[in-house]
């Protein structure tokens, strides 16, 4: 009874179009807003109304929250939390919270010191500090309510991901696939921060929380798959981290998340499927029990993490309405999966893919091209598409129930891949890789695409010179917003992809746009500028903050620094 009442409250909260209370707008991770004041006919009049330097130069992934006339912004390390008063002219701060974050974290974050955002629940702003702490901050006063160490930074565990809150559970995961961590998710008590359960992504069933009475994977059978699909003890430093996005289905009471790469990159050191790395897992929030799991890339040979968002939608697939999750994997395939069972309904490439010919829907397994298998004994394996950056990296797609389309930021790059044998040394990287990139077919390095997930078909594409590293936002105004690495924030027509508006925001965009209604009754848009989030993006002279660090440019985009440099800025736009 209490649970169902809470559920109604939560649903009502997330259904409010005027606010933005969780990272992906709603539990379904649609990044769709019902606001329509800004639309295709007036978006040309959109103008910048406000900006704020965060004082931090690292990659500004993630997105603000807007709750109760206040905008909350979490910066990359050192993870300052700003609370802007939207009722006052100039939006001055109500307060700011400056945690004491261990600088050691800078060396344990593989891919820039990013933070992917906060979650509002029960009057608290809940987010992760990079050094392995989860904090809850009173949204009204900025006072810390609790601070829990969830990860061990000295073992290579770090926490850039945004938590998910379901009822009284805060769910967080660890990064560290490049440090040989053993990936997990944990469930914390929202009131106290106490850790109530820990679920590993690999290892014995008891620690994966895969109980025979509740764990029913669609394709796989047998006990302790998280242990037996590895060499002895391989799972103990096998990666399978959680650094992406979580979603939740209240009706099924399941939350979904993807896991990252198995470690190390040299697949010959870890013969087997390496479950449940590069997988989607469905668990119960109350106790973490695993209900089903599906591995996108068995025996990953290419660093194809699967941490990208799982967008929940009801789609008519092959004539039948199905409750699905839609996932755009790093491996280049877009998956439409029955989210109750884990059955793959559609799996089609959404970018150029050559490591596998197709995904067999009967077995759920990809048909791998043996010529593209990698491993230390194989030397440099040439021309693999997509790169380890993925057909898409963490930058989240959006889904508009109005158009029925998914709007997906993508990369168009291929790579050579050479691994070397690597020794696990605590506190150092566990990688062993040289993988130069090259442009994919067509020469453009990225595109924003519209995707029909029921059919597994691209509807339109906007080619971009550089990889598209920002998230997407879809609105009831018939618009899609996204940003580019060369620093443009753009609006396009959701049906056709026609360019409608753009504005140069001062640094490359790797954050995710949001929209809300301000105290003035107007629809506003917010987005971060601030390139970073991956070392490849910071090659060359993009990074200018350290006189003792001058780097050669990245071969695939030697001129990116001509268009952008580091710098974190929060932007607001309105008509």
């Amino acid at each position: 009874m209490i649970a169902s009442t809470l559920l109604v409250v939560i649903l009502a909260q997330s259904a409010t179009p005027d606010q933005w209370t969780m990272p992906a707008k709603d539990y379904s991770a649609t990044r769709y807003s019902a606001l329509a004041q800004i639309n295709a006919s007036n978006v040309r009049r959109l103008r910048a109304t406000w900006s704020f330097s965060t004082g931090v130069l690292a990659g500004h992934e993630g997105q603000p929250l807007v709750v109760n006339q206040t905008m909350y912004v979490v910066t990359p390390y050192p993870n300052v939390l700003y609370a802007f008063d939207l009722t006052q002219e100039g939006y001055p701060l109500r307060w700011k919270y400056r945690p004491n974050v261990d600088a050691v974290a800078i060396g344990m974050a593989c891919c820039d010191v990013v933070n992917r955002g906060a979650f509002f629940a029960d009057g608290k702003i809940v987010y992760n500090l990079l050094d392995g702490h989860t904090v809850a901050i009173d949204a009204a006063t900025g006072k810390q309510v609790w601070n829990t160490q969830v990860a061990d930074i000295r073992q290579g565990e770090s926490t850039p991901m945004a938590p998910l809150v379901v009822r009284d559970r805060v769910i967080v995961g660890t990064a560290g696939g490049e440090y040989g961590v053993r990936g997990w998710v944990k469930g914390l008590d929202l009131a106290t921060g106490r850790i109530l359960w820990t679920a590993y992504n690999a290892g014995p069933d008891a620690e994966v929380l895969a109980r025979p009475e509740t764990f029913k994977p669609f394709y796989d059978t047998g006990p302790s798959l998280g242990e037996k699909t590895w060499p002895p003890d391989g799972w103990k430093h096998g990666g399978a981290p959680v650094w992406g996005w979580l979603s939740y289905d209240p009706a099924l009471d399941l939350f979904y998340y993807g896991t990252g790469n198995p470690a190390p990159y040299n697949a010959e050191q870890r013969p087997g499927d390496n479950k449940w790395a590069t997988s989607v897992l469905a668990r119960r929030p109350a106790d973490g029990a695993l209900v089903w799991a599906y591995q996108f890339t068995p025996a990953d040979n290419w660093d194809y993490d699967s941490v990208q968002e799982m967008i929940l939608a009801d789609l008519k697939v092959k004539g039948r309405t199905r409750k699905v999750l839609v996932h755009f994997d790093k491996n280049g395939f877009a998956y439409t999966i029955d989210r109750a069972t884990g059955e793959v309904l559609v799996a089609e490439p959404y970018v150029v893919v050559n490591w596998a010919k197709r995904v067999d829907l009967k077995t759920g397994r990809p048909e791998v091209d043996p010529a593209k298998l990698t491993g230390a004994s194989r030397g440099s394996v040439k021309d693999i598409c997509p790169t380890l950056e993925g057909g898409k990296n963490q930058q989240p797609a959006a889904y508009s129930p109005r158009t029925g389309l998914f709007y997906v930021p993508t990369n168009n790059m291929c790579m050579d891949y050479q691994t070397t044998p690597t020794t696990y040394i605590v506190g150092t990287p566990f990688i062993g890789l040289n993988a130069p990139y090259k442009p994919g077919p067509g020469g453009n390095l990225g595109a924003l695409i519209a995707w029909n997930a029921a059919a597994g078909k691209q509807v339109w594409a906007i080619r971009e010179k550089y990889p598209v590293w920002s998230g997407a936002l879809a609105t009831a105004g018939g618009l899609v917003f996204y940003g580019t690495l060369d620093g443009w924030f753009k609006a396009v027509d959701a049906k056709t992809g026609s360019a409608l508006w753009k504005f140069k925001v001062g640094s490359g965009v790797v954050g995710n746009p949001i929209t809300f209604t301000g105290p003035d009754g107007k629809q506003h848009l917010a987005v971060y500028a601030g390139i970073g989030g991956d070392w490849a993006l910071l090659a060359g002279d993009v990074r200018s903050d350290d006189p003792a660090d001058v780097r050669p440019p990245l071969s695939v985009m030697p001129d990116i620094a001509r268009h952008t440099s580091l710098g974190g800025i929060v932007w607001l736009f309105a008509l």
Partner: protein
Amino acid sequence: MAVRVVAAAPLLALVVTSAQQPPPPSVRYEQHVFAGGNPPPAGTLENPLAGDKRAAADGEKLFSAFNCDGCHALGAVGGQGPSLADGRWRYGGADGAIFQSIYYGRPRGMPAFGGVLPPEAIWRLVTYLQTLTPATDPATVSW
């Protein structure tokens, strides 16, 4: 045990446990400002293998075997950690400064390797890094 051998790495033969090793002497950072113009009395560390080509080649292997390239990238051109090949040094480029960066670590994420690598091996790494030649004009990028 801090090092767990997953793959065979022959260079681990160079490694002995640090317990038997005397710590390096305290050193002065020559690039620091000396208050009153007076350098503090302290020793300096000099690379006993400076210019030794075989030591540099060993150092390059150690650079991969001990996962230095995981952060600083192949060729030490910079990744998550800064470039060590640009002729510029955040914590000083003198023999002793580079040695101490590796031995004791640095606060912005550089692990301390003095517990898994003996001074002999660290000097080989220093020798390797000192052979890296910066690009001719790293200060200017033009299009």
